[in-house]
C-alpha cells in the first residue's frame, strides 16, 4: 500500500516536472527542473528492481549530460538565448507545426501499442515475475555476465562509437599550430 502511494507520487512528480521542462520559457530553470524529472524516474527504476539502472541514470544524466547542457547555456552568447525565448508563441506558427505533427504521430503510435498489448500475458513479464527473487540478489552480476556474453557485440560497438567521439572532441579542442 505504502509502495503504491510512493510509486504514484514519483510518477506524478516525473510527469509534472516533465511538463514544466517543456512549457517553461526560462531555459536554465527548465534544465534544473529536468534534474527533478531524472531523479523521480530513477526512483521509478528502483521500484522496478533496476537499482543499477537508476544509479547509472544519475551518474550519466545528472553528473554528465545535465552539467554539459548547463555549460552550453552559460557559455553561449546572450543574443542566441534571447532569440530562442523571443520566438513566436502562437500555437500554429511555422516554428511549431513540424514539432506538433511529430509529437501527435508519436502519441498515436504509443497509444495504439499500449492498447494492443495484453500485459498479463506477455512472455517476458511472466518469466520476470519468476525471477524477482533472483534479481534482488545478483543484479550487477547478471548485468556483467550478460554484457560480456550475450550482448558483447553491441557493447563493443558502443565502445567504438564512444572512442570516435572522444577522438573527435580531442581533435576539436587541439590548438592549431601557427603557420606564420
Amino acid at each position: 500500500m505504502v509502495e503504491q502511494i510512493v510509486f504514484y507520487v514519483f510518477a506524478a512528480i516525473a510527469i509534472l516536472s516533465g511538463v514544466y521542462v517543456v512549457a517553461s520559457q526560462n531555459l536554465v530553470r527548465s534544465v534544473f527542473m529536468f534534474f527533478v524529472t531524472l531523479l523521480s524516474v530513477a526512483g521509478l527504476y528502483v521500484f522496478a528492481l533496476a537499482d543499477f539502472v537508476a544509479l547509472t541514470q544519475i551518474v550519466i544524466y545528472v553528473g554528465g549530460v545535465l552539467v554539459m547542457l548547463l555549460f552550453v547555456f552559460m557559455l553561449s552568447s546572450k543574443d542566441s538565448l534571447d532569440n530562442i525565448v523571443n520566438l513566436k508563441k502562437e500555437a500554429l506558427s511555422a516554428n511549431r507545426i513540424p514539432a506538433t505533427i511529430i509529437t501527435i504521430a508519436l502519441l498515436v503510435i504509443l497509444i495504439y501499442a499500449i492498447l494492443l498489448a495484453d500485459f498479463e500475458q506477455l512472455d517476458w513479464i511472466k518469466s520476470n515475475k519468476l525471477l524477482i527473487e533472483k534479481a534482488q540478489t545478483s543484479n550487477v552480476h547478471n548485468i556483467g555476465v550478460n554484457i560480456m556474453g550475450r550482448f558483447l557485440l553491441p557493447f563493443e560497438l558502443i565502445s567504438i562509437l564512444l572512442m570516435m567521439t572522444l577522438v573527435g572532441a580531442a581533435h576539436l579542442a587541439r590548438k592549431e599550430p601557427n603557420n606564420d
Partner: protein
Amino acid sequence: MDFYILYILTASLIFAFIAVFSLFGVYAERKISAFIQDRLGPMEVGKFGWMQTIADILKLIQKEFIVPTVADKVLFTLAPVIIFVAVYLGFAALPWAPGLTPVSMNLGVFYVFAIISVEALGILMAGWGSNNKYSLIGAVRSVAQIVSYEIPIGFAIIAAVMIAQTLDLQLIGLNQGILAQQEIRFFGFWDVKDIGGILAWNIFQAPHLIIAYIIYFIASLAECNRAPFDIPEAESELIGGFHTEYTGLRFAFIFLAEYAMMFLVAMFGVTLFLGAWNTPLPNIGSLKLADYTTGMFWGIFWVLIKSLLIVAAQMWIRWTLPRLRVDQLMSLCWKVLTPLAFACLVISGLWRLLLF
C-alpha cells in the same frame, strides 16, 4: 512501524555527527593553519578558543537571509539544500562497524559515486542563481574540476573493487581483516587470514593499490574544492567563488557540505583501501591483538580515527601547498593521474587473472 523510527533515528544521528564534526573540523582547521603559519589561532572564546566555532555558528544562525535583487530567487534558495543533501545522502551507504551500516545495499560503492555527482549540479545552481559574475566563474571552474577529476577517482575505485570483487561496502570492509570470508594474501602470496591487522588491508593485499590510493587522495582533494585545487574559490581573484552571495544559515549549509564532503571522501577511501573498520593491530602468535580489537565499538573507533587522520592530512596539505593554475590542474589530471589510474586498473585485472 518500528523500522521507520529506526530510519529516522539513524538519519538524525548521521546529521548530528556531520554538524558536530564540521564545528570541530573548522576549529581544527584554524588551529592547524595557525600552527603551520606559526600563529596562535583562536584563543579568546573558552580555553584554547575551543568554543570559537560554536560562537561563530550562533552568530550565523542569527543573521539575515539576503537575496540579491537580480538573483533567480528559487534557484538561489534551493542550491545550498541540494549541495548539502547530495553529500548527506552519500553517508547512508558507508559502513561504521561489522554489521553496522545505515542502509546496506549491494551497490554501495556505485551509489556513493553517483550521489556525490549531484553536488556539481547544486554548485552550478548556486553560481547561476546568484547572478553575479564571480559566483558564475567560480561555479563553472568548480564543476569543470569536479567532472575532470571524477575520471581518475573512478579508475582508482574500480581498481580497488576488482581486488575486492564486490560493490557492497560492508563486504569490502569484511574482506580486509580477520572476519574475512575469502582467503586474503599479503602482497598476493602470504596467507594472512588469521593474522589480520594492517597486513590484510586492501593496499597491502595488492601493492599497486597504494598508488591507486594516492591517486584517489589527490583527486578527492579536487572533488572537495580544497587547496591546492581551490581555484573555484580563489579569494584573491574571485572573492569567494560560488558562495559569494550567501549569508547566514544558507552559507552555514554550504560550509557544512564542504566539511561533510571532506569526511565522506576520507571515510570512503578508508573503506575501500585502508581496511574500513578493521584494526591495524595484527595477531602475533598467542598475542591475539586483532581479536581483542575487533567489534562494534572498536569498529566505530577505528573508522573514526583513520578518517580523522586523513582529514588532518587534507588540512595539512591545504596550508602547505600553493594553489595550482588552471592549465597545471588539467595537465595533472589528464597527463599524470588518469594514465596512472588506468595502469592500476589493468594491473588489478591481471592480478585477479594470474594470481587467483
